[in-house]
């Protein structure tokens, strides 16, 4: 929204956050004829203003300081956060595997973790819809999960160097691989409300923003559609408080152009992500009779293995996660499992990870970085169980606005440690087979999940299976904080499916009330 414009009034629904949680819902509600608006802390980042430079693109990330505690402190900022119209989809890799049905039934299968309060069959139609709308590029036959009812809209993107090495190494040990599903276009498509989205140029900087609109970030897909249907997006609006009167939500206060404003709405959808959502709830002491707000923070097991090969690989080229295997979806001795993916990498990301991960310095550091164009990566994304010891709380250290900084405690449990060790050994074996040298591993955790979990029981969950707050009339939550378990796949596609599902439930509720 142009800053000279007036703020919207008389809203049916106010959405806080424009990422994979807020954006699909905003479009759905606007298309249903509701008067809706979204507040976004960050600003607009049109594709043509995106630089192919990681430092210049730091504005895509949430750079307000978060405090990382526990045995395995989670880095935020460049990883695990997002800010801007489109949220973290501006810098996601557009990796869009579906969850498998058993991902949703972890407790039933293993006796630990949590079951989701919904069935795979409830997500499936939304997956079908999303993959078409976003323009997912993927293989004709995908080897894992239930038979698809609708083919991927576009053929797979080309495989880059790391993907071809992983393909060769996996074939040697009899592991199946497949070109991955990526929400980036291998052919151009017309996008309702936006115009033509162009074919991916293999620029490889997906995690620093797409400069051609090939990647299905929310700004060039659902948010454009939402605005075409009359939704208003107020960018640069930092929400500082949720407002409540007589036991129901009335809107939100936010800083905009240096002034404190208030927007009123009959319903508020909190879609600020698994850090800012619980932070706002804890600040207001809201929706927390269960005591579960901020609890059960999860971050996927995401160990990476890197090496350098003889060939000039140019790891900045091509979609970073081009090849996948889900043959490790279930493994003896582990709760849940992981997926394996090839990894391209941008230079600054690689260099800083190498420095932090190996603590190499001096001439040895320079010598290693000199080999950047020969770097090949491979990593996993695996189940992380919810634990009592992993949680978010408000610290007593104020941020620039005088609000307490969030402190996030995170330590891997036994299962995550075993999974990391299993994955590292497998990937070291694979990279040994392609002749990689200077092989090193970076144990890490990726994505922010949990902290306002969904469930049937108001005593043990914050929202119901559709995202309605158990405790507070007029409040819905629609972001990855509601995940009861982490799933062994990247969360974005499932998050968008949940967003459409919540929008349909909310529309139904509002119709009943009218």
């Amino acid at each position: 929204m142009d800053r000279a414009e007036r703020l919207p009034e008389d809203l049916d629904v106010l959405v806080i956050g424009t990422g994979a949680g807020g954006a699909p819902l905003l479009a759905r509600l606007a298309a249903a004829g509701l008067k809706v608006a979204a507040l976004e802390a960050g600003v607009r980042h049109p594709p043509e203003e995106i630089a192919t430079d990681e430092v210049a693109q730091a504005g895509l990330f949430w750079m307000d300081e978060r405090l990382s505690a526990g045995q395995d402190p989670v880095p935020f900022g460049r990883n695990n956060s997002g800010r801007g119209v489109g949220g973290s989809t501006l810098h996601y890799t557009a990796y869009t595997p579906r969850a498998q049905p058993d991902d949703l039934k972890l407790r039933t299968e293993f006796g630990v973790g949590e079951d989701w309060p919904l069935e795979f069959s409830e997500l499936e139609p939304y997956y079908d819809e999303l993959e078409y709308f976003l323009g997912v590029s993927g293989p004709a036959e995908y080897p894992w999960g239930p038979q698809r009812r609708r083919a991927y809209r576009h053929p797979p993107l080309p495989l880059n160097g790391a993907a071809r090495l992983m393909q060769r190494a996996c074939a040697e040990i009899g592991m199946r691989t497949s070109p991955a599903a990526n929400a980036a276009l291998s052919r151009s498509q017309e996008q309702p409300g936006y115009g033509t989205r162009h074919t991916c140029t293999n620029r490889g900087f997906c995690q620093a923003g797409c400069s051609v609109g090939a990647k299905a970030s929310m700004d060039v897909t659902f948010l454009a559609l939402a605005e075409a249907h009359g939704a208003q997006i107020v960018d640069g609006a930092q929400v500082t408080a949720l407002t409540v009167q007589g036991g129901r939500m009335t809107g939100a206060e936010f800083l905009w152009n240096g002034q404190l404003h208030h927007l009123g709405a009959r319903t508020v959808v909190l879609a600020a992500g698994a850090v800012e959502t619980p932070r706002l709830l804890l600040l207001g002491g809201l929706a927390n009779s269960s005591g579960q707000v901020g609890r059960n923070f999860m971050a996927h097991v995401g160990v990476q293995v890197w090496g350098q090969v003889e060939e000039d690989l140019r790891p900045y080229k091509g979609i970073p996660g081009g090849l996948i295997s889900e043959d490790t979806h279930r493994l003896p001795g582990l709760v849940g499992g992981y997926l394996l993916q090839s990894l391209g990498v941008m230079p600054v990301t690689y260099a800083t990870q190498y420095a932090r991960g190996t603590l190499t310095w001096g001439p040895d550091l320079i010598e290693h970085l000199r080999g950047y164009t020969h770097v090949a990566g491979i990593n996993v994304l695996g189940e992380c169980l919810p634990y009592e010891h992993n949680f978010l709380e408000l610290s007593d250290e104020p941020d620039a606005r005088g609000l307490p900084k969030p402190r996030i405690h995170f330590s891997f449990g036994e299962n995550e440690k075993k999974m990391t060790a299993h994955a590292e050994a497998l990937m070291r074996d694979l990279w040994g087979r392609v002749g990689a040298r200077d092989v090193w591993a970076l144990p890490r955790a990726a994505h922010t999940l949990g902290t306002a979990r969904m469930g049937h029981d108001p005593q043990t969950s914050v929202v119901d299976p559709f995202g309605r707050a158990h405790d507070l009339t007029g409040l819905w939550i629609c972001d990855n904080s509601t995940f009861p378990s982490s799933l062994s796949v990247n969360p974005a596609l499932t998050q968008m499916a949940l967003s459409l599902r919540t929008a349909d439930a909310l529309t139904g509720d509002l119709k009943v009330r009218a």
Partner: protein
Amino acid sequence: MTQAEREAILELLNSPQVTGPTRRALQERLDARFVREFFDETGFARLRAVATRLVPHDPAEIDLAGMVDHRLHAGSGDGWRYADAPPDGEAYRRLLRALPQAFETLAPEAQDAALQDVQSAHPRAFEDLLAELTEGFMAHPLTQYRFGYVGFADAQGWLHVGPGELEPWEEHHGPR
């Protein structure tokens, strides 16, 4: 930076191979120099000496210590810090104070030994500083030129992405 290096870098940056937003970011960084504001003179001299040992570079070419000082003065951060560490500026000051007297004038081997000691005593600050210096080093157009990196030539995209499949402007950028 030799005149030839500078010319080669600017030639590609100013060519149609590079989009406007990318060109602006890299041109600005190529000549970035900072006025000391956060550290006092002694602290800054020490920071520069540390920076050249941790990430060997010529401060006349790439002003890494100035970049750190500038960032701390501006009060910007990278979005997180270890909960058991003080804010970055204070953490770095403690790290620098823990080094022996006249660190700047010690022989390189003695400097490295002292750095190993503070790495053990101040692991968080050491890691953060190393990562910040490494970022500034790798993001600099001169480093990128010397390492033969050309991913910023973003106007056309890449037709071939397989191993060893280089396009002409990839092969020709960088030292011979």
